[in-house]
């Protein structure tokens, strides 16, 4: 009953009609998969002609063909099959699954290559495998799935993610370059609709990435969006609903427990316990030791009796069970002369922290049109995205939830006012107030991203392509900060802040591609130019004094005082030339050479242009006769080696210049005023005279960082490619790393100066192994894919003046030779159990029973600065992922595990749970088991208010085993049988349920156990929720 399948028929009839003079014989048939199920959407064309159609819902097709025609059946994910039509009018074609995907085409930068011909380290991810995961950011979904790519994330709805390819390669921005349909960008991947993504390729080594030159130093991730294909008319609808469950964070003390712990801490310190909040009743036992009988909690905690003493669980107050919803529709129509794909997506994630919502609406139109008998192709890829993100007090609320005492009520007794700290409680905000008072505040980003292109075949196989791309965003935020009183914290001014940013760039690319076959030689040539121009503009304005605290009222004009505004801009440009030659001889010997020259406005006058070369070679051993004919086991075997250089230019856009700016004043709440205004006349108010301040010192010699990478790899397929895999080894050296080193204070402000200073080395291994099989005739198929990668990082050079900024003793021990991020500190050697142990230990100021004992590493009888060592390297032995999949008839099941092994983390959670040295901040429940003379087996130091032993110093007390294995995803799907869907004119219907983060395995016992909840997050960051999803995909 739907119109679209009909139009398929109409389109194919028209094509058939156009070639009617040749088409003599009407034929018909049905295309099925291995299991005999009809395959809809298979392209059927007559070889050497434009006659064709695509299969209907049940896989059936009909067509008129000339005599002696050969039919070509093709469908993505299946092996293309040719069938002679001679003398036949009825066909039953079974397409085989394309398991090896050797003919798969990979986008490698301004061109495509067969995967079989690749000589660089390129990982290919099929977006279909992960598109149903509810995260809203495709990169989050790749966690653990690509060897050599380390992805760290939290549970925030905005999809923030850190992607690191082959270790930390620079001291600055380590984010990779993203290239979406040919257009480079550095961020905003969370604004992509993951349903639009066809495939993702990760260019890991320099021989693959150097075509992107000075921006490829951290690796390149190429994202290709879906296009309509010739002869396919289809509507896909998909939706899911996900329930996210909040997680308990570190359990903190309740009201009674805090009172008891405070009393114990004061007693431990030799103080007489007293508190503005609690009343203590205690006596002295026979040994003269004080014993607590009772902690009396007052009815009210404030003198005005507005705050009734509570027992608030702040984590519960700020978290919620919440929903993620996604709706996606994708319309594809492919014809002989043009293809168009249109998609719409709505994604809405409420977050497990209240009011941390992220919403996104995206629309995409990808289309292309052929002219001049297919010699000219013109098209565009364009996506418009609108995302709305809450103001972002969620992290701050999480942070203060840890600190705020349970005795503080959420609301005052009238139910309207806010509870908040009173004397005896640290000056921390009520986390619920932070969230509620900011719930009206959010930012909206509107982004247009895409390109228009034309591709002209000048002579056979010589393509001139020009593409003009844009990536512009408009960010807008209007935030109303309300008046409040919350205990002794208050603000009696409300304030509206408007911020508008416009930023983005255009990209103009021109390329020439030529491919040539000469005997057994296959040659591909690429030459091109690219120019990028980026601008950023910000305007902000604010006022205070709004009569009504409602966003509908609170526009700037409605404010009565303190008009303030601001604005600034920045810009950069890139001009580049590049070329690449791919050579293949006899399908066995492969070679590739790349050269790119980049000019960047960010660099000094003397070094504005850089050249990035690369070369690689491959040997398809499996094509050699000695293997091909003799070893049946081996279906595919390729050895690859590559070398190349890439760059990084990620510094401030005006980094090369000396700068002075007029700065009237800056907000002095947390950092000192950096301004230049002064009340020289002593008027106490009114406009002030002001001046300028230096911002930066120039550097005409500034240039990009250079990463030189060597890669050796082996790809293999065994047993008819049932078992496939690859192994890679790389050495990656980055030099001239851009640093803005801290400088001698005598220079004063604005002494900052970017220099090319540091060097880092990374070496590592990556393994990928997959096995897939089908139990013949049973309809049961299964697959296992595992990957594992490991790297070793070390800092190999630093400017002398900053060498001590990354740890070390300031003398002979430095970070050189250590992994970047290593921590230097004291070795905690358990707790002193008795005064006797204190007396026999080296002199340690603040030592005492129940206190941490620090090891006298240099044996000089005293604990001081020189008793420190490297206490963790902060890098894992390896990271890995394991995917188990199976299908039977219409059912499919998938389990995905991901893990990190051998990682010693610095667990900062313990700062908050084990210690409270700002009085009136809460302790964690862990301290209920803290050391006391009676509980002397404990590993948790005696509670204290004074920290006489300076136990927050960097020490191995905080180092724990951060290894984990998580069941990231479990999914069960059911595809409704074709015979049922066909009745509804539907091609495919799939229902699924899945859960994420269902299980975490970690080190729970022993001296090195991970003592907090989630080893993935060592602070009180946004918790990663457990989620359950129900989803539906329909194609018709």
């Amino acid at each position: 009953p739907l119109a679209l399948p009909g139009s398929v028929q109409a389109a194919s009839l028209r094509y058939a009609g156009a070639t009617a003079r040749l088409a003599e014989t009407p034929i018909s048939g049905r295309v099925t998969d291995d299991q005999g199920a009809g395959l809809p959407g298979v392209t059927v064309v007559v070889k050497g002609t434009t006659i064709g159609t695509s299969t209907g819902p049940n896989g059936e097709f009909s067509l008129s063909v000339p005599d002696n025609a050969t039919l070509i059946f093709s469908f993505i994910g299946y092996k293309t099959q040719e069938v002679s039509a001679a003398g036949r009018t009825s066909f039953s074609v079974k397409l085989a699954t394309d398991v090896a995907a050797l003919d798969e085409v990979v986008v490698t930068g301004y061109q495509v290559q067969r995967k079989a011909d690749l000589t660089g380290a390129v990982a290919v991810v099929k977006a279909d495998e992960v598109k149903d995961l509810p995260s809203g950011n495709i990169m989050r979904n790749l966690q653990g799935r690509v060897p050599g790519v380390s992805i760290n994330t939290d549970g925030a709805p905005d999809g923030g993610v850190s992607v690191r390819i082959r270790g930390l390669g620079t001291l600055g921005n380590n984010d990779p370059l993203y290239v979406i349909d040919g257009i480079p960008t550095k961020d905003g991947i969370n604004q992509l609709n993951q349903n639009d993504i066809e495939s993702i390729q990760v260019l890991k080594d320099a021989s693959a990435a150097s075509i992107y030159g000075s921006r490829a130093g951290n690796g390149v991730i190429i994202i290709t969006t879906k296009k309509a294909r010739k002869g396919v008319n289809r509507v896909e609808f998909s939706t899911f609903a996900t329930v996210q469950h909040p997680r308990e964070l570190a359990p903190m003390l309740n009201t009674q427990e805090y009172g008891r712990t405070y009393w114990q801490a004061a007693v431990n310190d030799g103080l007489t316990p007293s508190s503005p909040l609690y009343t203590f009743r205690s006596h002295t036992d026979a040994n003269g030791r004080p014993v607590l009988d009772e902690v009396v909690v007052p009815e009210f905690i404030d003198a005005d009796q507005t705050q009734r003493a509570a027992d608030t669980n702040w984590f519960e107050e700020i978290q919620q069970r919440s929903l993620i919803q996604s709706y996606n529709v994708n319309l594809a129509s492919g014809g002989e002369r043009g293809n168009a794909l249109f998609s719409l997506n709505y994604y809405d994630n409420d977050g497990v922290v209240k009011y941390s919502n992220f919403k996104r609406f995206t629309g995409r139109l990808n289309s292309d049109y052929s002219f001049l008998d297919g010699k000219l192709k013109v098209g565009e890829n364009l996506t418009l995205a609108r995302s709305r993100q809450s103001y972002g007090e969620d992290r701050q609320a999480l942070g203060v939830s840890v600190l705020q005492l349970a005795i503080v009520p959420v609301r005052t007794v009238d139910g309207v006012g806010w509870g908040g700290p009173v004397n005896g409680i640290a000056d921390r905000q009520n986390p619920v107030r932070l969230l509620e008072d900011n719930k009206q505040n959010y930012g909206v980003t509107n982004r247009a991203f895409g390109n228009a292109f034309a591709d002209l075949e000048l002579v056979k196989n010589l393509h001139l392509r020009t593409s003009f791309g844009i990536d512009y965003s408009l960010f807008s935020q209007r935030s109303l900060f309300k008046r409040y009183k919350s205990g002794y914290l208050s603000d009696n001014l409300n304030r509206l802040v408007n911020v508008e940013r416009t930023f983005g760039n255009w990209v103009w690319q021109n390329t020439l591609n030529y491919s040539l076959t000469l005997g057994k030689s296959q040659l591909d040539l690429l030459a091109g130019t690219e120019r990028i121009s980026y601008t950023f503009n910000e305007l902000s304005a604010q006022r205070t004094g709004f009569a009504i605290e409602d966003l509908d009222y609170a526009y700037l004009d409605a404010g009565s005082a303190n008009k303030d505004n601001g604005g600034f801009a920045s810009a950069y440009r890139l001009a580049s030339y590049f070329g690449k030659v791919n050579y293949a001889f006899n399908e066995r010997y492969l070679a590739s050479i790349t050269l790119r020259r980049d000019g960047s406005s960010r660099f000094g006058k003397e070094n504005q242009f850089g050249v990035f070369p690369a070369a690689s070679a491959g040997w398809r051993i499996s094509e050699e006769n000695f293997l091909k004919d003799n070893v049946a086991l081996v279906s595919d075997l390729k050895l690859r080696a590559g070398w190349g250089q890439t760059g990084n230019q990620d510094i401030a856009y005006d980094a090369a210049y000396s700068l002075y700016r007029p700065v009237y004043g800056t907000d002095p709440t947390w950092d000192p005023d950096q301004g230049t205004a002064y009340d020289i006349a002593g008027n106490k108010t009114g406009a002030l005279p002001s001046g300028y301040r230096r911002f930066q010192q120039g550097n005409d010699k500034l240039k990009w960082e250079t990463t030189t990478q060597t890669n050796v790899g082996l790809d293999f397929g065994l047993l008819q490619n049932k078992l496939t895999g690859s192994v890679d080894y790389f050495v990656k050296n980055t030099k001239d790393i851009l640093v803005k080193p801290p400088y001698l204070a005598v220079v004063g402000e604005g002494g900052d100066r970017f220099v090319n200073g540091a060097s880092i080395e990374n070496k590592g291994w990556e393994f990928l192994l997959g096995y897939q099989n089908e139990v013949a005739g049973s309809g049961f198929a299964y697959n296992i894919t595992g990957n594992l990668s490991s790297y070793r990082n070390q800092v190999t050079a630093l400017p002398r003046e900053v060498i001590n900024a990354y740890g070390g003793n300031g003398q002979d021990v430095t970070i050189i030779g250590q992994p970047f991020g290593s921590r230097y500190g004291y070795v905690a050697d358990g707790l002193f159990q008795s005064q006797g142990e204190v007396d026999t230990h080296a002199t340690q100021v603040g030592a005492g029973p129940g206190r941490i004992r620090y090891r006298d590493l240099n044996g000089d009888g005293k604990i001081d600065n020189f008793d420190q060592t490297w206490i963790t390297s902060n890098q894992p032995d390896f990271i890995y992922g394991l995917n188990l999949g199976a299908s039977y008839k219409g059912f499919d099941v998938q389990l995905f595990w991901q893990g990190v092994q051998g990682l010693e983390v610095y667990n900062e959670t313990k700062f908050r749970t084990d210690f409270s040295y700002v009085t009136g901040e809460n302790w964690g429940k862990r301290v209920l088991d803290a050391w006391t003379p009676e509980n002397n087996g404990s590993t948790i130091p005696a509670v204290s208010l004074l920290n006489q032993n300076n136990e927050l110093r960097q020490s191995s007390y905080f180092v724990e085993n951060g290894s984990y294995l998580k069941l990231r995803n479990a999914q069960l799907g059911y595809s409704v049988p074709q015979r049922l869907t066909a009745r509804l004119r539907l091609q495919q219907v799939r229902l699924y349920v899945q859960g994420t983060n269902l299980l975490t395995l970690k080190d729970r016992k022993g001296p090195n156990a991970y003592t907090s909840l989630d080893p993935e997050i060592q602070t009180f960051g946004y918790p990663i929720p457990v989620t359950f999803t129900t989803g539906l995909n329909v194609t018709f």
Partner: protein
Amino acid sequence: CNDKDFLDVSPRGALSDENLNTPEGAEKQVIAAYSALANDGFTAPFSSLWPYGNLRSGDAYKGGGGTGDIEGFHFYETFTFNRPDISNTDEVWFRLYVGISRANEALNRLNKVDMPNKAIRQGEMRFLRGHFYFILKELFDRVPYIDETVPVADYEKISNVDLTSQQLWDKIAADFQFAVDNLPASQGEVGRASQVAAKAYLAKTRLFQAYVQDDNHQVTSIDQAKLQEVVRLTDEVIGTGKHSLSPDFGNNFQSQFDNGRESVFAIQFSKDDGTPRGRINQGNKLNYPMNAEFGCCGFHQPSQNLVNAFKTDAKGLPLFTTFNTTSLTEPADFQNNAVDPRLDHTVAIPTHPWKYDPSFVFQRSWVRVPDIYGQFMSQKELVGPKDQSFQKLPPFMSSTKNWAVIRYADVLLWKSEALIELNRAAEALPLINELRRRAAASTTLLKDISGQPVSNYRIGEYAADQWTQEYAREALRWERRLEFAMEGTRFFDLVRWGIAADYLNTYLSVEKTRRQYLQNAQFQRGRDEYLPIPLNQINFSKGLYKQNPNW
């Protein structure tokens, strides 16, 4: 266009160095340098020097939310854990050099342009530079000295030990002398340095310089010629008649008397001035009590020892030897003992009116952690919640009340000190008594709700009969302590006099019985007189800077 043109992207919204070499640019840079006077923050104040001058002197406890709340200050107070890598130390070093660089920056412009008041502006900038170096010298002793003639590229060649301690004092004195020679007696704009202020600061410099220290910070001799210069300069200041003591001691700590006659040089603050939060005093913003009207952050608490020091005997004179044997703690103690009226101007005491408002009574519950830091708080630097200068800066608060760098009382006591050390103690007696007379007259603000004096005030003048040099020295030092208590100068006095180690270890031996957190506190002679040179700076200088002794 070609690539070169395409890639030529000039910075947006910025100026180059040369753009500023105009009379107008120079004037603006002068203002920018003044602005640095007040650009301090709460983690490294340098308007008030309370973390360095009071916490290390036995006058004040850190206060705040416990020993971990700005831990660096806790380490200053207890000495034992103080280290060269404490960030507060590096920060105050850096920010003082920001001030110096702004002064040098302005001098550079001034040297290049012609303008009618060029010499005056140069004098002002050298005054400011002298001020910043003076603080550095008090804090660190040996610091690299850089003036506007040194190109930035050569800064890394200048060590902190290139100049001896005395040479460094001479450099600072030279800046103030230049200011004396070029500034007018008074300036139209009250915020600008005047010749009188420069003379006073020069006197202060020479006074500090007079106490000659060896390499281990021990005072070895007192330079009589320098003392005579102090007497001459202070006489000139006094002789101008431009300044005098305020009639009431409390006027110095109330915003409505800003830039009054006692103020020789003060840092100016403002609000509703077009800056994001006003230019209110940031260096003292941690020091408000925890009651509902304020709420943050309870730092800077007078020590029990300091409170006891305000006790007076039957003649209204200090109890030099016995003051600390009993403590003033309970409300009755302030009635049963006689005290110097300056106590209630300085210290917030439970049951006493807060800041002269009889209806606004300070209570123990306003103190943040009395278990650790006792029940007193500071109040000179603060204003009441209804004061016109008060402003919230959530979660903090502060005011536009000036911060006096030099007040006239200082000039009188510098002169007294120089006279006593010149063995002319008799001439110092009337000066010290002038301060005591003013203190005696400063009780009108100290009334409770029924109009009765808050404490039992008794203060008398010293008599000439027992006024020996030794007695006068003791009296002078006591007078300085009470007059300037909690104003951030005490520790530098102790070091100048060469008594810091003995004084502080004596103080700690008693105070640790009152305050548990002082258990491990100990002053190390020959080390703790100065802060360590920040480790960062030694590293950034690639070892050119030398650490102070015994760190």
